[in-house]
């Protein structure tokens, strides 16, 4: 009985003990649950915004869509730079059951090398199963067709096109149109990173570089939802890219090609412009190079071959080549003489074949050993008499020569729409003092008077100044861009010519006199460019033969080459028709010899083609 009572008591106390322990545990459960709930509140309410952002960052990706680069045409709509699809064969692994069988299948259809397969296998391991892995690049049209036909039985096989810049005329336009290349470190410093997010190529030189902004267009964006592996599930928002503008150049591809052919194997440059608008009709620098080689990266050896060549194919002679203008300066000198009254129609000079400054023993030689005899200004131009111009220069003085020639734009950049144009050089006392630290010597005036000595001019500058002769002092900034076209609505916006301060201080009679003399160069009895007589229109021109000096004493030149490279540069400037010029041009043939016999016929062929076939027949 007592024992039972004890047990009962025990039972009661045990129950109480257990009850209190359960209460403790309920408290613990409550406390731990409260912690969890607090944490949930903290995550889902207090920090909800933060995690919501992270969640969206996870799934929403902004994909930049590159704009299509604008095309480049010539003035007649001939395509010069296009975006050519480059097809490649891709395989999406997740859609393929038996990869080896598929590759074997594909090898029966198109050529797939062992190297291709090896590279494919490497890529295969690195990419997600839903991403296309390239197997073959640069498929030909036939291969694309073959695959397209067989595609229905080849699941997972895709033909992917990527646009590649292609220059249809290759080297003919390399120096004008230039090329695009892969964006490099230097480009990255100057470009807008947002706009170029998806762009791989950028204009490196030429028109491609100068009009990069217009050609590039504006980047587009796609907001997509992706899963954790990066597979795109759907597009949330889209802002399509704005394609780049099409450019219509003032160039005529036919004239360009004819000019290129006319230069033949010579190194040199031809620039032809439309005198009233400044539109450049042709701009050739020979030799050229294939710009297509640069688009996706040129090989080191190929680049070194171009860079190291003595012919300097990468050098744009038309824009950067600075040559002594030689006798082509004489019409300008003649105008200066008339303007300052140092010469007139009745004024003559006896040419014994040399000229001497009073009190000086040195003889300044005429190109014609025996001399031209007594010549007036007209004959001095027609026969290109140096002695007449030595005397004229002496009377004009270098100061007045500089002031007058500067009006035409000698010694300064023409402002054409290409980068890194050189200004040439129009010497003056001022220039010599500041650049050379020396005083001007009277003899240098004589040399400058026949376009030698310090005087330098680019072929472009010669063409532009020649145009100003033909238009009697009109000055217009030369331009390669003819019109800009918006690809979305097709509207074409032509460019207006930019006129500069015209050449003044000359009467019509004075102009007539000199310009007629330039016609006599071609049609006169003793004209130096008589070879152009048979052209369908009347041509006015002036030959030039520039002495080459200061040639680098480079041991690498062999004797024959030195001899060839010491030969005079042949120059010729012309405009036609003489009464109302529609074309003005300058031809510079490096080491070509005589302007009349080498440069003038080249100009003749170009003019012949221009008036025979091109003019009036776009």
């Amino acid at each position, binding site marked *: 009985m007592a024992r039972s009572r004890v047990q009962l008591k025990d039972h009661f106390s045990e129950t109480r003990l257990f009850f209190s322990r*359960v209460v403790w545990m309920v408290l613990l459960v409550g406390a731990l649950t409260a912690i969890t709930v607090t944490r949930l509140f903290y995550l889902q309410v207090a920090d*909800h915004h933060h995690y919501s952002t992270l969640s969206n960052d996870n799934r929403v990706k902004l994909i930049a869509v590159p704009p299509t680069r604008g095309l480049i045409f010539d003035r007649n709509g001939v395509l010069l730079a296009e975006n050519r699809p480059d097809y490649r064969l891709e395989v999406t692994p997740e859609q393929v059951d038996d990869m080896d069988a598929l590759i074997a299948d594909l090898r029966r259809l198109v050529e797939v090398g062992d190297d291709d397969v090896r590279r494919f296998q490497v890529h295969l391991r690195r990419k997600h199963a839903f991403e296309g892995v390239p197997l073959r690049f640069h498929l030909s049209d036939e291969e694309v067709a073959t695959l397209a036909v067989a595609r229905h039985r080849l699941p997972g096989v895709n033909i992917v096109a990527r646009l590649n810049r292609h220059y249809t005329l290759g080297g003919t336009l390399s120096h004008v149109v230039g090329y695009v290349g892969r964006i490099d470190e230097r480009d990255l410093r100057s470009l807008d990173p947002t706009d170029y997010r998806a762009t791989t190529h950028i204009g490196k030189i030429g028109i491609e570089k100068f009009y990069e902004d217009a050609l590039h267009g504006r980047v587009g964006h796609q907001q997509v939802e992706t899963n*954790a592996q990066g597979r795109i599930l759907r597009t949330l928002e889209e802002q399509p890219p704005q394609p780049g503008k099409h450019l219509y150049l003032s160039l005529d591809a036919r004239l360009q090609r004819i000019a290129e052919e006319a230069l033949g194997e010579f190194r040199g440059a031809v620039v032809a412009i439309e005198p009233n608008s400044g539109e450049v009709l042709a701009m050739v620098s020979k030799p050229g190079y294939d710009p297509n080689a640069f688009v996706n990266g040129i090989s080191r050896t190929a680049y070194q071959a171009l860079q190291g060549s003595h012919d300097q194919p990468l050098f744009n002679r038309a824009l950067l080549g600075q040559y002594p203008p030689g006798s082509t300066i004489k019409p300008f000198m003649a105008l200066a003489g008339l303007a300052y009254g140092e010469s007139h129609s009745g004024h003559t000079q006896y040419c014994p074949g040399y000229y001497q400054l009073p009190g000086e023993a040195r003889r300044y030689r005429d190109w014609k050993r025996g001399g031209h005899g007594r010549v007036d200004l007209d004959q001095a131009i027609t026969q290109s008499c140096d002695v007449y111009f030595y005397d004229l220069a002496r009377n004009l003085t270098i100061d007045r020569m500089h002031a007058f020639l500067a009006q035409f734009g000698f010694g300064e950049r023409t402002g054409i729409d290409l980068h890194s144009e050189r200004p040439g050089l129009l010497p003056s006392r001022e220039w010599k003092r500041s650049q050379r630290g020396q005083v001007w010597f009277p003899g240098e005036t004589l040399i400058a008077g026949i376009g030698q000595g310090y005087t330098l001019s680019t072929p472009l500058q010669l063409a532009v100044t020649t145009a100003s002769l033909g238009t009697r002092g009109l000055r217009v900034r030369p331009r390669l861009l003819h019109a800009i076209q918006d690809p979305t609505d097709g509207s074409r916006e032509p460019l207006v010519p930019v006129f500069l301060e015209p050449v003044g201080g000359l009467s019509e009679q004075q102009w007539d006199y000199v310009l007629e003399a330039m016609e006599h160069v071609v049609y006169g009895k003793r004209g130096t460019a008589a070879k152009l007589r048979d052209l369908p229109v009347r041509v006015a021109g002036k030959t030039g033969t520039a002495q080459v000096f200061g040639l680098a004493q480079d041991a690498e030149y062999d004797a024959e080459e030195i001899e060839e490279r010491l030969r005079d540069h042949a120059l010729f400037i012309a405009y036609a028709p003489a009464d109302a010029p529609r074309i003005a041009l300058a031809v510079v043939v490096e080491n070509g010899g005589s302007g009349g016999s080498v440069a003038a016929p080249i100009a003749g062929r170009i003019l012949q083609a221009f008036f025979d076939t091109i003019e009036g027949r776009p």
Partner: protein
Amino acid sequence: MKLADRYDLGAQGSAAPLTGWLARLHLDAALLLGLLALAGGGLVILYSASGEDLDEVARQGARFAVAFVAMVVLAQVSPQTLRRWTPRLFLAGLLLLIAVLVMGEIGKGAQRWLDLGVIRFQPSELMKLAVPMMVAWHLAESPLPPRALRLLASALLIVVPAALVAKQPDLGTALLIASSGFFALFLAGLPWRLLAGFAAAAAAFVWPAWEFLLHQYQRERVHTFFNPERDPLGAGYHIIQSKIAVGSGGVYGKGWLNGTQSQLDFLPERHTDFIFAVFSEEFGLIGALLLLAVYLYVVLRGLYIALQAQDTFSRLLAGSLSLTFFVYVFVNTGMVVGLLPVVGLPLPLISYGGTSMVTVMAGFGILMSIHTHRKLLSP
């Protein structure tokens, strides 16, 4: 106390035919309601977490059916019978654990399974039930609170199987086994002084355990837990993505099937250990609180059953099983919300997977048996 028992519906039956029927099957209607709610909610969220895979939902449903049968079967076994079989069950479990370890040594690598030819069986799952049963059995042998020697023996009954499981290595299950034994011990009246002593000893044990007991990958997990950004694409990825899922759910959630973290694969293990993150992302704070409330309801119902139990063995066992269930929930949700390190414990009754579900439901079968096999004592 005893008078109150008499009016307990579960024990006495009722006029309602369903309740009466449940009583005859020894099932507790209140507990069953909570369990069915959890399982139902689990299937709903699994449909979303599995990427709307009905097959997977059906498989989980089938698994729940099996677990349900296990529960019903165990509910029929009276606590007395259970108590009688406890030592043998425990011994068998212990031997199987050793067998698994030995085979693991041979197989070189983690080994939790015992292949019985027909079915694969995890002895550690058996121990989740056998350990609290054994501790309760041992403590019920003498009046409470237990004496020192009994406590020491109980401690051995807990530590040995827990250590064997930890060696597999399965830290999550070892934790559950240890805590189930500890709960039995605590409910039996483990002196507070000893508890404080244990806590101190455990604190002192942390460093050697860290250095010598934990595997490198377990240490990694703890490192990652304290600083998930240390390795955002590797070990920290789970925690970071899980927190983003929960946090971005906000108060109302993104809606069923609309959780971007889960639907777009950013959340790893989303239909197993991290399913609570999917739930919180899609149903928000409101949904998560509701789910926790149901869990809490089940735990409290279990503790109520323990309070109602008539003998020490039943009491301790019922209390331990209920609290262990809570540990499951707390550790899993704590891991998902970044409160606790990543321990491979599923969210009970909701995470996709079979073995633990059967064990959990079997435990509830025992709880129901305890509640429905009470004898009415005359006053």
